[in-house]
């Protein structure tokens, strides 16, 4: 944007000034629309349920602020279970994903490996064609007996080919001379991968951890088809129960019947906050990495 700082821009016509003002106004309006739903949820979660039910229109601040819905929420062990399961899936899944993806990207980024061409074809084909929902379900649940285990939620989709290709591009850019000298010192392939390649690719590994991590945090569908046992449910499945099927009766148990309905009204907002806050907390710090990932992917594509 150098030209903006350039002197020629100082002669702004009236039309341009009007445009600038309108543009800023449009952007403000847009930001408000983008942000309002989240603000609404935030305010509603801290509001008094009875006041909220009677309220009409845009919420600017919590109504009669109270922590009632949060207190109710934490009384329920269901969400804590969900949180725990999600954390297990997230940690194990991200670790497995990064391991598989980096190994695959490493091998495919090596030159002079005869079978790599075939490996690439086999792997890239799966981006464009697959067995489909039912055959995959049958393989995972019937053939491999992963039904009703947490394994089913992260092993079958551990490697994203798209992410692997981004990583391969990045690995291939590392100068060969580094590993050649390591090889002369007697380093094996694993040593080269973990001691040279990965430490040199911290940024791309960070991007991958974030992509996979957000994916595991937000996923719900596989859990809904593979899990029977409520003890194993991840957070998103409980969220679906509360938000989509509108079943807050379990959440509000322990409240008098009179209040049940009204607490149900705000409890869903506190649950959204509970489930989204971790991502919103890491977001500002990691935002530049997310964007970087898109850029690397775009350059590749």
């Amino acid at each position: 944007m150098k030209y903006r700082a350039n002197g020629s821009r100082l002669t702004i016509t009236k039309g341009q000034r009007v445009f600038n003002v309108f543009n800023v106004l449009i952007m403000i309006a847009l930001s408000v629309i983008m942000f309002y739903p989240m603000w609404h949820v935030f305010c509603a979660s801290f509001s008094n349920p009875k006041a909220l039910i009677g309220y009409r229109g845009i919420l600017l601040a919590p109504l009669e602020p109270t922590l009632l819905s949060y207190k109710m929420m934490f009384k329920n062990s269901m969400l804590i279970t969900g949180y725990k399961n999600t954390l297990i899936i997230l940690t194990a899944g991200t670790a497995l994903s990064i391991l598989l993806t980096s190994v695959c990207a490493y091998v495919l980024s090596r030159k002079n490996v005869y079978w790599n061409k075939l490996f690439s074809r086999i792997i890239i084909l799966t981006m464009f064609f697959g067995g489909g929902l039912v055959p995959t379900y049958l393989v995972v649940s019937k053939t491999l007996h992963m039904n009703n285990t947490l394994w089913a939620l992260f092993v079958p989709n551990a490697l994203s080919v798209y992410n692997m290709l981004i990583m391969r591009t990045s690995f291939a850019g590392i100068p060969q001379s580094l590993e050649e000298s390591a090889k002369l010192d007697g380093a094996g392939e694993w040593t080269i991968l973990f001691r040279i390649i990965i430490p040199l690719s911290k940024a791309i590994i960070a991007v991958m951890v974030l992509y996979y991590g957000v994916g595991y945090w937000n996923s719900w569908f596989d859990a809904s088809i593979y899990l029977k046992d409520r003890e194993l449910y991840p957070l998103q499945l409980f969220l679906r129960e509360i938000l989509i099927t509108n079943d807050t009766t379990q959440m509000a148990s322990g409240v008098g019947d009179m209040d049940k309905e009204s607490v149900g009204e705000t409890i869903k907002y506190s649950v959204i906050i509970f489930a989204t806050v971790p991502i919103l907390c890491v977001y500002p710090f990691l935002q530049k990495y997310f964007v970087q990932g898109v850029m690397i992917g775009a350059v590749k594509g």
Partner: protein
Amino acid sequence: MIKKMQTNKKETHTSKRQFLLHDLKINRNLYIMMIPVLVYFLLFKYLPMYGALMAFQDYSPKLGVWGSKWVGLKHFINFVTARSFWGLLGNTFRISFSSLIFGFPAPILLALLMNELQSMKFKKVVQNITYLPHFISLVVVCGLVKDFTMNDGVIGNLVEIFGGEPKTLLNYPEFFVPVYIISDIWQGVGWGTIIYLSALSAVDSTLYEAATIDGAGRFKQVLHITLPGIAPTIVIMLILRLGSILNVGFEKIILLYNDSTMSVADVISSYVYRRGLINLDWSFSSAVGLFNSVINLIFLIGSNYINKRVNESSLW
């Protein structure tokens, strides 16, 4: 020592067989590393492809794909001649095209407007706010959509304030597609601008200087410099989008639809899900899924062909 072998490689291999053995020897450790990855693809990607053969069978889990009775194209014919077929195809195309027409230009427009902002700080703030919805989980987004479009939700309230009659929008077939598309745009528009903003920053700034000297206004500059500058990116994104035109994901659909909107909301993928995993019509559902994948593949190959002609670059 390995290095020595590599330099010798070219001279020593006389036959293909010798070369292959040699390759196996030097790259042995790499091939060993690759085994878990190949096992992963075999188990989770290729075994299901083999399983997809059940689309041509009356599959029974006891007999497996190996032993079940082959019925040829029965399930495909049943699907194509079923009364619901044209409805499903129509819904899939309707949702897909609406999303193409409204969802595709939205990030381009936003990126152009962002690019015209004079204050870099303000631009950063706008970017950060608009990227945010991308990271919210689909379940939460659909929960928000449901909550906001209720007759006593925020949108209902606003309608009431302006003198309209509040409705629970998701119970009316005519509102399903708009709600679906608008919420999609809400979630994805900011994130979608990243690629265009990077293309915009690559446009040669001296062109703008020259245009300013020639007396071109801002609008003319956008028309004659900015848009042509990012046109290749737009074309690539459009072609990629066209390649997945029949690929409407079912997750959002099954979170948002209900009995009263089924007639417009049910797409091929959600039908596959329902018939396969709820009604347990395994063979029929696989056939429908296979039908959909093959059509997707044809669209993808077609759009890649166009891409090759236009950009001289290929996806593969």
